[in-house]
């Protein structure tokens, strides 16, 4: 019994599914592109980040938020997919096979990670086309994408847990999305968190999602002119904080999800 092998077999299964349902991948791309367009062209001129109201500064500021939002929203797919497998009796089949216990979930989350990575590539190209630039070199930019994928992978275990906990795929879709709105909006993703009311500002500065966004902004060189880095520890040390948060979330929710999978009835 091999965890690695079994996980790869399941990952392969999910990748084949992705190829056969390309519209799923497509929708996963349209949404962030829509957000880029809406935020840069609709809100862009009215949102002050740092001391700048320039829409080019906002565009660069925004992209880290959009990337992070995209990896985060992708987690809803893991939940819906797993709930669908439960509903169709596939989870029962897998649980009756002599395979590694965590492999069904690991395989699914790994396949989602591949899809997310592809989405990132396309989204980065679109961003470059509309004027997003990196200023700290390709190495740091790649490190930023690494942090993003780690965050997305950690969150996908929350999606998996939700998928195992609800009765229908429909519930998994809405349940998998609902927590993402406060998570991604009470953050520094779309606005400068310094401009938030005190209570929300504290939440935003400790939000694991904000931490990764801040780390990416530093690594992309996308911090706007006159930006004052908040005093909160995760904002002061965003890279290490981002890794710590992601690893913590991954450990906790992987344990919970695998336990739920084993005991599910």
């Amino acid at each position, binding site marked *: 019994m091999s965890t690695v092998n079994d996980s790869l077999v399941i990952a392969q*299964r999910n990748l084949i599914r992705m190829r056969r349902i390309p519209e799923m991948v497509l929708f996963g791309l349209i949404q962030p592109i829509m957000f880029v367009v809406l935020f840069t062209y609709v809100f862009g001129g009215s949102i002050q980040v740092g001391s700048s109201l320039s829409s080019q500064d906002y565009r660069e500021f925004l992209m880290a938020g959009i990337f992070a939002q995209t990896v985060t929203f992708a987690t809803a797919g893991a939940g819906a997919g797993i709930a669908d497998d439960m509903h169709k009796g596939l989870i029962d089949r897998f649980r009756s*096979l002599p395979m590694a216990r965590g492999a069904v979930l690991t395989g699914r989350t790994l396949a989602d990670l591949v899809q997310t990575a592809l989405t990132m590539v396309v989204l980065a190209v679109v961003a470059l086309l509309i004027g997003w630039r990196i200023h700290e070199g390709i190495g740091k930019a790649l490190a930023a994408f690494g942090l993003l994928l780690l965050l997305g992978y950690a969150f996908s275990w929350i999606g998996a847990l939700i998928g195992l906990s609800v009765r229908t795929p429909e519930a998994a879709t809405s349940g998998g999305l609902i927590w993402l709105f406060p998570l991604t909006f009470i953050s520094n993703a779309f606005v400068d968190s310094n401009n938030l009311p005190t209570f929300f500002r504290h939440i935003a500065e400790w939000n694991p999602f904000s931490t990764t966004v801040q780390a990416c902004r530093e690594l992309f060189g996308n911090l706007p002119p006159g930006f004052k880095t908040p005093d909160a520890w995760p904002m002061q040390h965003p890279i290490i904080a981002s890794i710590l948060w992601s690893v913590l979330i991954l450990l906790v929710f992987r344990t919970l999800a695998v336990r739920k999978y084993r005991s599910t009835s």
Partner: protein
Amino acid sequence: MPGAIYAEGLVKHFGDVKALDGVDLDVPEGTVLGLLGPNGAGKTTAVRCLTTLLTPDSGKAVVAGIDVLKHPNEVRRSIGLSGQFAAVDEYLTGRENLQMVGQLYQMNAKAAKKRAVELLEQFNLADAADRPSKTYSGGMRRRLDLAAALVVKPPVMFMDEPTTGLDPRNRQQLWEVIKDLVSGGTTLLLTTQYLEEADHLAHDICVIDQGRVIARGTSDQLKAQTGGERVEVVVHEREHIDLADQVLHGFAKGGGATSVEQHTRKLTVPVTGGAKLLAEVIRELDARGIEIDDIGLRRPTLDDVFISLTGHAAETGATPGDADKEDAK
């Protein structure tokens, strides 16, 4: 020496509901046990406990000589499970589904590939092997599901309502497949709400209701328990029912009572004497001027067995989806 499937005192609660209330089972190697019962009787729960999907609250279960509670993963190597749904990935082709299951049974990729080809051939799916299974008909999907359960030629098989929702032709086909399988020496536990199916496929039958085994034996033994043959008469005129009742009472075995259904004008009486007696009944009814629409000698069916044991009919009209929800919760 316990059989290939052995259970003793299985109990399982879901909240306040007692899904299994002390179930004992013993299936000798190479035989088929039909677990027969209405929706919600506990059939699926019993199968889920025996196939490691559920942990019973108490009791003992041994499958293929291995303790299910102590060594679930060893049990999984020796069983095949075909559930109420065709549990196949609809976006994968038949071939891909079987290869995946083979690999998850820890076969290497090459062996899994080879076995998939054999199974597709055996289950008459070779032509559709490279089409996504969502394009398959219901019967094809069930066959694929069954093939997936047979990837490692497991010595013990569990089938939970394998033909629920299939049309008669596909049901017949699946029966043939199951018979082939059993003739190869596989031990099979089969749940069904179709009495005919249990009669057709199973060596032994356990009737289960409200989480308890209420009767067990061969199909013939269970039928004998209900009583022997009966004469059924449908009279043409409602006014003749009482008169016919008197006539039939004269033929009743041991002075047994005639049962009368007023709205269908049907009278049933337990008898002995077979076809010869039937002729006498017809002559007597004719002599009294009672016109009849239908008359026949009936051997008891498992339906009769079921009604006489549980006091209610088996609910065969329910949809498979409902059956699962009732049973699985």
